[in-house]
């Protein structure tokens, strides 16, 4: 077997398998992880740089185009990654009928939180930009 291809010949023939969506989620978790490396480091550095900043300084900074765009991209990748990560945790540990409800609640909550965060940034841009 090729060292780089960890899938068995049967798995290659039967792809994407019984779940049909597994490899997509696997890839999405990795792609969002790669996006989050620079975005979260930028966020952490920005927060550290704004230690002691007041409300006016903070909103003026966030309403500039680059920070607003990066913050929105951070929210999208963060909540996509969070939804996929929590989904795996639920699938691993919950084996009751509540599992389906938990999966729905997690996915919808992540979408709602991402949208709420993006709207908040747009409001800051509209008012302070």
């Amino acid at each position, binding site marked *: 077997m090729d*060292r*780089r291809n*960890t899938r068995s010949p049967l798995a290659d023939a039967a792809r994407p398998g019984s779940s049909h969506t597994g490899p997509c989620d696997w890839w999405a978790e*990795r792609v969002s*992880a*790669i996006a*989050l*490396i620079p975005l*979260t*480091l930028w966020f*952490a550095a920005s*927060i*550290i*740089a704004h*230690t*002691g900043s007041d*409300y006016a300084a*903070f*909103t003026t900074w*966030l309403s500039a185009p680059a920070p607003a765009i990066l*913050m929105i991209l951070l*929210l999208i990748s*963060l*909540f996509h990654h*969070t939804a996929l*990560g*929590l989904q795996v*945790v639920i699938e691993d540990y919950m*084996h*009751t*009928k509540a*599992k*389906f409800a938990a999966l729905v609640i997690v996915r919808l909550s992540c979408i709602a*939180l991402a949208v*709420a*965060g993006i*709207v*908040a*940034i747009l*409001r*800051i841009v509209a*008012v302070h930009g």
Partner: protein
Amino acid sequence: MPDATPKRPRPLSPHIQHYRPQLTSVLSIANRVSGLVLSAFAIGLVVWLTAAAAGPQAYGVVHHAVVSWPGQAILFGCTFAFFLHLCGGIRHLIWDTVHGFDLRSIYVSGWAVVVSSTVLTITAWVASAFLAG
């Protein structure tokens, strides 16, 4: 969707408590726990942004909570969880390229995660304290 509850309970493998903790298992659990901590932190991030959008009064309430003693302790914990998940995540991405799976590499990368996440957490807080004056 098939019924998730089996008619007869399936045989269980020995529980996690029966195993001696090792760097590999501890970091695996830590990556998952730090992910859960960061999920809670993500909610806090949205609360913080929403408060900033609502105005100076609402922002002041959140800011007051963040700079309080318990707020700072939680934020310190979240900082460590962030760097642990970041470094552990990079380790996982390297594994995804089918590299570093021999026992020696696994322990070297494992200790690298422990040391780098600790150093990054301390560096972040020292830098923040230095900028605050």
